[in-house]
């Protein structure tokens, strides 16, 4: 078989991207509760960073392990020691530099073939935008509540 990697053989045939809003919200809420319970009131910066990690964690858990980007996020979160292993550079087949920029932005992007990168990016982007929408919605509701 071709040793350069398979052509567009992604096991996920689902054309729609992103998890359900409800699942995302449930996980994020649960994570927020944990952060609230376990972070001392005296360290707001720490709490902000933990909330950010909770956001990416709930995104990744909601996406499940069928996505390469979510596996990469969970690996990164579980192994917080920064081991920058240099992956062998794969040449992009088209649009050279921009694909490289994308590989750096999408978790796990460095090791993907071009087709997988495009599909993973679409899913990752969809999940990210849903997460932002969720967080914005919480901030808006809590602000307008005015307590």
């Amino acid at each position: 078989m071709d040793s350069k990697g398979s052509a567009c053989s992604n096991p996920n045939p689902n054309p729609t991207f992103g998890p359900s809003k409800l699942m995302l919200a449930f996980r994020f809420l649960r994570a927020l509760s944990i952060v609230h319970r376990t972070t001392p009131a005296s360290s707001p910066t720490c709490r902000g960073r933990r909330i950010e990690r909770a956001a990416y964690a709930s995104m990744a858990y909601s996406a499940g392990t069928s996505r390469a980007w979510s596996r990469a996020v969970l690996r990164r979160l579980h192994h917080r020691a920064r081991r920058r292993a240099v992956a062998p550079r794969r040449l992009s087949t088209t649009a050279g530099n921009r694909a490289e920029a994308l590989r750096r932005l999408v978790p796990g992007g460095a090791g993907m073939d071009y087709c997988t990168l495009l599909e993973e990016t679409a899913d990752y982007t969809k999940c990210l935008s849903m997460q932002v929408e969720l967080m914005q919605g919480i901030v808006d509701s809590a602000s307008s509540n005015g307590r």
Partner: protein
Amino acid sequence: MSSSRITDEQINDLLTKLQAVLPEAHLRSTDRVSAAKVLQDTCNYIRSLHREVDDLSERLSELLANNDINSAQAAIIRSLLR
């Protein structure tokens, strides 16, 4: 010819699907998409989303400090029911 060769059609299809998750996707043509444009737009969009997560995390942190957790939970449920 190798049967594992990726076709331009497949690439274009994936690029179209990617473009569909970008903002204002409905304004764009779905015929041939420019790979360079889609990738550039995507990079810009992901960067802005990362910044928003960062910013919103800080704001949520302040909210948790000022309110109790219950109103944050109520806020989430309200935002889901919208």
